[in-house]
């Protein structure tokens, strides 16, 4: 296996780190964008598996000059899935915003209640 293009590797790294950074934000819109970017990162890394990825995955060119079609097929499937789920996420984020007029991930009330317990509830 020869090495893939350095530029592509850097791009994938940048996409992953910015995607995970956005995922850790409180605003749901940013989280959705994080998921989108992570999806791109995963698809690009599928394409990284083949060094000849810029060539078409077709027979009939010069001898030995074609790319592996399988990463293309897998990336296509993955694109369809991330596309569908992203639309769903956008709809959910919209519903959350309609309900609360903000789209921030709330604190977990139950956890906060439990951590504020100073003594067992039975003693009350």
């Amino acid at each position, binding site marked *: *296996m020869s090495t893939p293009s350095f530029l592509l590797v850097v791009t994938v790294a940048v996409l992953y780190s910015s995607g995970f950074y956005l*995922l850790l934000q409180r605003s*749901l819109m940013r*989280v959705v964008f994080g*998921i989108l970017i*992570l*999806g791109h*990162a*995963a*698809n690009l*890394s*599928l394409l*990284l*598996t083949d060094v000849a990825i810029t060539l078409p995955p077709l027979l009939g060119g010069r001898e030995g000059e074609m790319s592996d079609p*399988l*990463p293309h097929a*897998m990336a296509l*499937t*993955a694109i369809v*899935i*991330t596309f*569908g*789920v992203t639309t*769903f*996420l956008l709809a*959910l*984020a919209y*519903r*959350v915003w309609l*309900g*609360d007029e903000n789209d921030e*991930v*709330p604190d*977990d009330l*139950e956890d906060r209640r*439990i951590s504020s*317990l100073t003594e067992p*509830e039975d003693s009350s």
Partner: protein
Amino acid sequence: MNALLAVPFVVPLLGAAITLLLRRTPRSQRIAGAVTLSVVVADAAVLLWRTHDGTILTSQAGDWPAPLGITLVADPMASLLVLVSSAVLLVVLLYAIGQDIGGLSRATPQVFHPIYLVLTAGVSLSFIAGDLFNLFVGFEIMLTASYALITQAPTRARVRASMIYTVVSLTSSILFLTGIALVYALTGTVNMADIAEKLGAAPPELRMVLALLFFVVFGIKAAVVPMHFWLPDSYPVALTRISAIFAALLTKVAVYAIIRTQTLLFLRDDISTVLMVVAIATMVVGILGALAQSDINRIMSFALVSHIGFMIFGLALGTAAGLAGVVVYLVHHIVVQATLFLVNGLIRQYVGHTSLAAIRGLTAVSPALALFFFLPALSLAGLPPMSGFIAKVALFQAAVAVGGPLAWTGLAAGVLTSLLTLIAIFRIWTRAFWGTPRQDMLEARARLRSGSNRGGLRIMTAMTGVMVAVGVAVAVASGPLTAVGFTAAEDLLDGRAYVTAVLGEGAR
């Protein structure tokens, strides 16, 4: 192509299309859904009959020779899990139908039936997929269906919870895809048997990184500590019929995927110490979380997290006895979790919620309900002679046979967790089931038992009873079950049988 292997996911997909067309006639839609699932159960029974002696059935889609085509594989473990999961899906569907007939649910049945069948297809495909990418597709079918199901009867809380659930699952899916890309770059194949052949020659450091990545991917979905935070926030919020299926099946599919990848693709020593530490942490942290809760559904969700630890523990032992224990535990836990969540659904019918603070005297309200809670709850805690006891004894015996400080620590954690589970259950029992019932609960009972709700409630109670009976049957049939567990475990440990079955005699 062997049609037996295609039925568990093709028939539910067809059924989903049919129930979608029948959405204007509720009765025929219900019949179509139940018939579809019955066909899957029958097919899975045949599959298990054919594979229970250790035979591995394979099927190459379109007769493309492996590793080029799409491979479906049914070994004893996959067949057993397809059978148990489809049976539980069928019973929960009947419970849901009863609820709809009685007009006791705010779900939209027109939407529920097709998506439920799609979920079935995804679960079955995940069990019998023979290549990593198909496993990914199976997971995605299952998860996409679950995203839609968790938002049934959307309230503000449900939309928020499903947002968390979807984002967490999607993150793990993207990591899964990354893992597939890395494995493909390393080996040039996605067929699991073929990967097993080629990954053995890969550098050990790379293999370890991949093993860890796949453990994280499936660990998020199986809710092992420290990747469990999403589960108690999302499962209890969904409708009962949906949280029952999620709790019983979705986490177990992920556990199955962990077992499959860690035994077949990676070597036993790659990350077994990590697995053991995670297993112990999951058992203890999960059950401590359960003790702190004051809502029955949330207690059950934390207990679910905790008991996933037992299955990872058996896998980390890495012996045939350990894996056989895991197989028995999987079957026991699928049935018991589903039963307990169905009981919670019945409690919700009587009380309207499941908060311990405002429930008293359920035994007086409905003795049957008390019995249906008590038996599976004791089984969950592992009291003899229930199925949980048998599964736990199998695991503990395997741990003693392995020996060493880690295995003994795991055993101690397991015993401690069982005791703490018992405490959590007795907290529910003394608070919710004892005492004199509140007036509004008696009024709710009178309302439910008269008028149009009555038939529906009867079906729901009957189906919960059926699940309890299945749980008892698991304990009664523990002899044959353990035998199948051992056959499955030997197949899992000796990857050669799997590889030969898929790639043919010429391999290795």
